[in-house]
């Protein structure tokens, strides 16, 4: 089992619903966010090209945050989801420094916090909060090992990219381009 997400940059309108849904679902402290939307503009007027990406923890296969954690608080669970155990986390900040995507932050309670792929929902057979609220249905979640999952079908038919593949992290959030 390998959970992954695919996000269609051609369908995303940048409404930030995914950000609000995550904050509500996961009780993210005010002023913080586990996911965010990037607008990438290239070219010069009037020849502009825009790409909108909803970004979050990439739940990397080769996760530098897990590698550098001195206590094992950052760990990988079934399905390749990277999680933080708050009672093991000492708040040293190493994983925040280690993440090329700046996907982690220090929770006001002291421990490090980040996207969990909404594992508590996924275990019940639901989609992550961000995926479930997307008004354009531009996000696909599922198991890469299952060829019939939404994410597998999306990746099978579309051209895609990942962020900073040169960082060697083998990220598992794919962007359909």
């Amino acid at each position, binding site marked *: 089992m390998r959970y992954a997400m695919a996000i269609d940059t051609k369908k995303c309108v*940048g409404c*930030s619903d995914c*950000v609000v849904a995550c904050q509500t679902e996961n009780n993210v402290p005010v*002023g*913080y*966010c586990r*996911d*965010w*939307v*990037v*607008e*990438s*503009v*290239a*070219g*010069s007027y009037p020849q502009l090209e825009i790409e*909108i990406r909803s970004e979050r923890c990439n739940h990397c296969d080769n996760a*530098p945050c897990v*590698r*550098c*954690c*001195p*206590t*094992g*608080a950052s760990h990988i669970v079934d399905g390749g989801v990277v999680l933080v155990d*708050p*009672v*093991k*986390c*000492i*708040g*040293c*900040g*190493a994983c*925040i*420094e*280690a*993440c*090329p995507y*700046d996907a*982690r*932050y*220090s929770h006001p*309670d*002291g*421990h490090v916090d980040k996207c969990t792929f909404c594992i508590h929902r996924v275990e019940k057979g639901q989609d992550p909060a961000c995926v479930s609220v997307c008004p354009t249905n531009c996000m696909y979640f599922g198991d890469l090992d299952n060829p019939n999952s939404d994410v597998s079908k999306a990746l099978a038919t579309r051209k895609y990219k990942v*962020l*900073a593949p*040169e*960082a*060697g992290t083998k990220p598992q959030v794919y962007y359909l381009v």
Partner: protein
Amino acid sequence: MNEELIISGRMNPGIDPYLHVWHWPIPTYLFLGGLAAGILFFSGLYYILGKEKQLPTAVKWASFLAAPALVVGLFFLFIDLTHKLYFWQLYTTIRLTSPMSWGAWTLMFITPLAFIWSATYLRELVPKWDWKLKILWNFEALAIKYRTPIAWVIMLLAVILGIYTGILLSAFNARPLWNTSLLGPLFLTSGLSAGAATIMWMSKDHAERSLFSKIDLILIGVELFFIIHLFMGFLASTEVQIQAAQLFLGGEFTVSFWVFVIIMGLIFPALLEVLELRGFKVPVFIPAGLILFGGLMLRFIMVEAGQLTRYLY
């Protein structure tokens, strides 16, 4: 034009607008750790070489600074944790892939050993010292009997500690400025140089002083060699590391790095030491103080600048 904007208004404290997770306690600790490693390395080395009599500052007296430096450094590490009450989780596991785990365990052993090492010389420093309890007298006798194995262990741990202060940073590939394997040897050399400078500063013996002056000169040469290679490596690397090097070659850390670290911290004290070795009178605190200052600045600048560098996508 190519512009990336976070349009959902992310402002995570410490992350945005630019990463600033590690503050002044971290570089201060890296400096104190390196300094203690330098002092303890020379203590162990010259004890093993049987120079206890000729080099008393290196073997005995400087070690009285090393143990407190480690304790203060550990305190700084502790205050930069955001989940402080859970710090003991460091000692429930050994994570071989985590430099911080290596460091935590190294400190766990080298700090008490540094105290024991200086305690065996305490009665030479304070002749009237009385351990009061019989068990402490016995413990002292035991430690004195096993000085040679302790010296070997201290020397080995000091090298691990000195290298670890650099590897702690270099293991992060997400921060291109840090992500060079030269940082381990560079910080080790800088720590040894700081240790040698401290011994030189404390020593009252002319021969000992001039020996450590020469050692320092060699270490400064090695450091400059590493720094030149660091920049050669960056400039011959990928765009992210070229941009990291630009911070020091015209970017915002240019003046602080070249003036404080290279000129004031390495070249100027090296010139003063050459002058002194040629017979000119140079107050020892000037080159020694400058070397220590340069070592501290190197770590501050590397930690601050490294957090500004990142992948581009």
